[in-house]
């Protein structure tokens, strides 16, 4: 885990993209960090389920492929999100990218720090860069998401096929 985090921050510092690394060992081909204990969507969002609240953000792989985030558009508290549907957007390199929710539910908190410091998504995608917290309406949606190992493999396969 520590080695992966080091690799990820080195990769970020050198602005390496895992897409451009064809054959590599012994590290995993995916330079980005993946945390155990989170669930992952194939559109590169993560979910942390604690009690009745699910926290949502985008993964290290996602932020690396986006570039430096300069603007974050988030919904209001009290709104709702639907699985696999957009709830907000981030802007980087003059591109706005929609962010999709991995689960459905009611939005109970929104990370207001991101309007002042959108770069938190790049520097701390799993912690300070969290985006919204929801009360999930359907527990089975969480079950359907990928675990850390599965998501790591998913990233590797995605990057390898090109």
């Amino acid at each position, binding site marked *: 885990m520590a080695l992966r985090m080091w690799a990820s921050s080195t990769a970020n510092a050198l602005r390496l*993209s895992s*897409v451009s690394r064809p054959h590599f060992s012994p590290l995993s081909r995916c330079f980005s960090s993946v945390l155990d204990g989170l669930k992952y969507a194939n*559109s590169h969002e993560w979910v942390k389920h604690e009690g009745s609240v699910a926290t949502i953000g985008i993964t290290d792989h*996602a932020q*690396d*492929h*986006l*570039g*430096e985030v*300069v*603007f974050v*558009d988030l919904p209001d508290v009290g709104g709702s999100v639907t699985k696999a549907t*957009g709830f907000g*957007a981030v*802007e*980087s*390199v*003059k*591109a*706005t*990218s*929609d962010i*999709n929710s991995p689960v459905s539910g009611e939005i109970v908190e929104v990370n207001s720090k991101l309007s002042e410091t959108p770069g938190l998504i790049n520097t701390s995608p799993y912690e300070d860069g969290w985006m919204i917290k929801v009360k999930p309406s359907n527990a089975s949606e969480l079950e359907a998401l990928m675990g850390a190992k599965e998501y790591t493999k998913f990233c590797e396969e*995605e*990057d390898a*096929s*090109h």
Partner: protein
Amino acid sequence: MRIPRKLEVWRLGRVSYLEALKLQEKLASDRKMSKIPDTLLSLQHPSTYTLGKRRTDHNLLVPESELKNMGAELYYTQRGGDITFHGPHQAILYPILSLRDIGLGARKYVENLESTMIELAALYGVKADGLRKLETGVWVGERKIGAIGVRISSGITSHGLAFNIDPDLRYYKHIVPCGISDKEVTSLRRETDMVLPDEQVIQDQLVSCFARLFGYSDIIWRNGSSIL
């Protein structure tokens, strides 16, 4: 193993911004459902100012009513980027691609769009560059020749790039272009010593640079009036 990648290019001529926007929305939806292959719209707009998702209208230096008097339109859009101008003699490409299918993230996609314009400029002996941190776009020295503003929704791109062949640069005086106040805007006409061919030739060359950079080996060209 590389599967030959197919690109459908639509040569649309001059199209209003709104018409192009509606077309892109439909194509993006079709592309998401895999009803169509990766598609590229090649066109020009009448005089039009556009803003991005951040709605930076403090960079519009004249009231909207004055734009109407000039015969220019104004649109607020969902694309990234700041305020810009589109008009005749500016080549526009709107790629509607599935980024997941070609394995690109936003950053690499935009770099490729920059490279497309850099390569085209090079055909005319103009040395342009990109990859400028926080100043995405294509530059000749400190003068901007190409702009980018992109939307990515469920991995499908829309909007795209605008390359100045020979637009009326006076229109840029009414805005702070791309939010950058201390740099000029330029055009291929201004920067090259070569005689420029017919604009359609340059527009098609821009498409070819795009196709080559993005690795499309199978290109189908379709022409304007039959599509809209």
